[in-house]
């Protein structure tokens, strides 16, 4: 069960990672409503991503990675549906087949000593160099979060890096994904 003043007798299920994708009206405050629900009720957000997906219908898609037991995640889904501008909520892990991707940008401290090694790793992970005016060395890597984790780990062993990550977005592989 979720939580109450009292300990629940059957809190035995295991906690796992879930990706929720939430279709919302793109109106002021909608993100605050979603985030506020998580913090107010004590749920976790591992990462959150939001962007408009339909300009003419003013729809945005919020992708949230959370951690919890299936009971907690089911409660999160129901609480999300209570929010007025929320159209639909899907739990992608539950639906089984989905594809997720994340983007990372990495600023690398490059010198003659580590250059060869850095490019090897980047090649292996298909990280793409992004040209910029200041000639700093910035790579873009896209793919599953786990793959980006491994890339960062290897890169950390070679040199100092600075990193920003988008957090994953995900989509169901079922053909008819239109919830509306």
């Amino acid at each position, binding site marked *: *069960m*979720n939580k109450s003043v*009292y300990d*629940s007798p059957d809190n035995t299920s295991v906690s796992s990672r879930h990706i929720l994708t939430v279709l919302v009206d793109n109106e002021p405050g909608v993100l*605050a409503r979603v985030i*506020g629900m998580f913090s107010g009720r004590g749920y976790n957000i591992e990462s959150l991503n939001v962007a408009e997906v339909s300009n003419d219908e003013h729809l945005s898609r919020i992708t949230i990675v959370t951690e919890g037991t299936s009971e907690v995640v089911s409660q999160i889904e129901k609480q999300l549906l*209570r929010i*007025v501008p929320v*159209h639909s909520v899907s739990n992608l892990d539950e639906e089984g087949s989905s594809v997720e991707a994340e983007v990372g940008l990495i600023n690398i401290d490059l010198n003659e000593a580590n250059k060869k090694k850095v490019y090897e790793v980047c090649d292996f992970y298909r990280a793409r160099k992004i040209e910029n005016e200041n000639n700093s060395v910035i790579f873009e890597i896209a793919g599953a979060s786990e793959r980006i984790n491994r890339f960062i780990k290897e890169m950390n062993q070679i040199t100092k890096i600075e990193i920003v990550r988008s957090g994953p977005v995900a989509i169901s592989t079922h053909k008819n994904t239109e919830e509306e």
Partner: protein
Amino acid sequence: MNQEMTGAEIVLQSLVDQGVEVVFGYPGGAVLPIYDTLFKQNSIKHILVRQEGGAIHAAEGYARSTGKVGVVLVTSGPGATNVVTGLTDAMMDSIPIVCITGQVPQHLIGSDAFQECDTTGITRPCTKHNYLVKDPNKLSPVFHEAFTIAQDGRPGPVLIDIPKDVQFANGTYTKKENIIIPPHRLFEPEIFKNDQKIDEVVNLISKAKKPIFYIGGGCINSGPKASELVSQLVEMTGAPATMTLMGLGVLGSSHPNSLGMLGMHGMYEANMAMHDCDVMINIGARFDDRVTGRLDAFSPNSKKIHIDIDESNINKIIKVDVPVVGDVTSVLKSVVKVWKDNNLKTNQSDLKLWWDKINNWKKIDCLHFTNNEKEIKPQYAIQRLYELTKDKKTFITTEVGQHQMWAAQYYKFEKPNRWLTSGGLGTMGYGFPAAIGAQVANPDALVIDVAGDASILMNIQEMSTAVQYRLPVKIFILNNEYMGMVRQWQELLHGGRYSESYTDSLPDFVKLAESYKAVGLRAKEPEELDDVINEMISTDKTVIADIWVSKEENCFPMIQSGSAHNEMVLSKDQKQDKLSAEKGKILV
């Protein structure tokens, strides 16, 4: 068809279009244009409260006693922050409210202007939905949507924040009929396919040997028809029924199948029956911690049916076997129909055994108290209040604490919407303004706020409101000079150390009433009680009846925090077992 007018006029026109008759409010800089428009019209009555917190509780009282939406109008900044408690209260108890707040002009938003606050930010978690309206053309669509959302599905408060410049600006008014609300923004019953579920419900009930109905406030929110259907179902099945604090009045107290209230201060027989039942039918209740007691011992051997309009209540606290998401009235209509169509019956001999057991529990007489000739027992005061008011159209509101529980236990409710109390949030100061709201809605009724000496002081300023509008609200104070429930918990759990729960320097409530040009009465001894109550009832003015009751009386029976339904404590002499007490101490 659509008309051009100022934002403030659109606000008023929207209210008129929504059938609003009364607004509870308090003016201020950021709502002056709306108040100016209010001045120029006659269709909406405004009740001026003395603090915004009073306005929203009054609107709650209005809403609960009528089933209509309560409307509040307050200014920006402190006006808005003062309604936060009431919004949260309405959110917890599912009361339909539309609250209009003024906001500083748009060009000042974010500048820390005078009386500016982030109203929509502050109220987001304590409203069903809220709006900041930046365009006068959007005002009427927002208003019509807000009224729909407030009443739709599980009702609740909706707030509309309107910058002052939007109130002045011209815009187009769109009529209610011309507004289309996208279905995803509302409760969508059609997404829940309940037909099969209804069969399961009916099947489970018909096979039950020890069924019990557990009835909540959802049955009141669903409208008077729901209460009729509940009675019908209870009679058809012959099963016992118990009600939550919010559900009192759904099934009349005098109904032979009623076991009264359940929960922390509920009836012994109700809690025991919940614990021992084999099929529990929860209709419009949410397994609140005040009802369930310790979860690992909550009704361990029953199949549970849960009918609720809010899907998030299903499996939130207690895992149920048959969830049915929908409005109580429509679900019960189907249940009754299927029951009748299939000519179903409960097994009478099983049921007889079950009732025998229940009747044995009843013999405990859990509400027994020892009366006293010298002191007025608070329980006795409520009993007398009930006896002397039961033949009138009476509304009872309460504050929060011991007096609230005694009122719930000893006053008998026969109809829905007559009992107005702050259940979920437990807001001291709720009862008096709520009584004002109920009296405004029901001018001919007898409206009594059963109060404690501490709670009543939380919104005592509303005396001025009651007197101004000649509202003959009665305040019935069970005065023990303590925050009684706090004192009781300190006695039971904190070694009798009454830390800050004694109120020194209480006002003389009789003189206080008189200073507001109301009537003050006092009863110090049991023999004075009936006369005071009768005089209170017959006085056509606002009355404070100051009833001096036993100071250290405890509210029993009680499931102490950390205990289970079958571990009720019936009196002071009975002690909670040590382990439960230690665990219970840290709970609320």
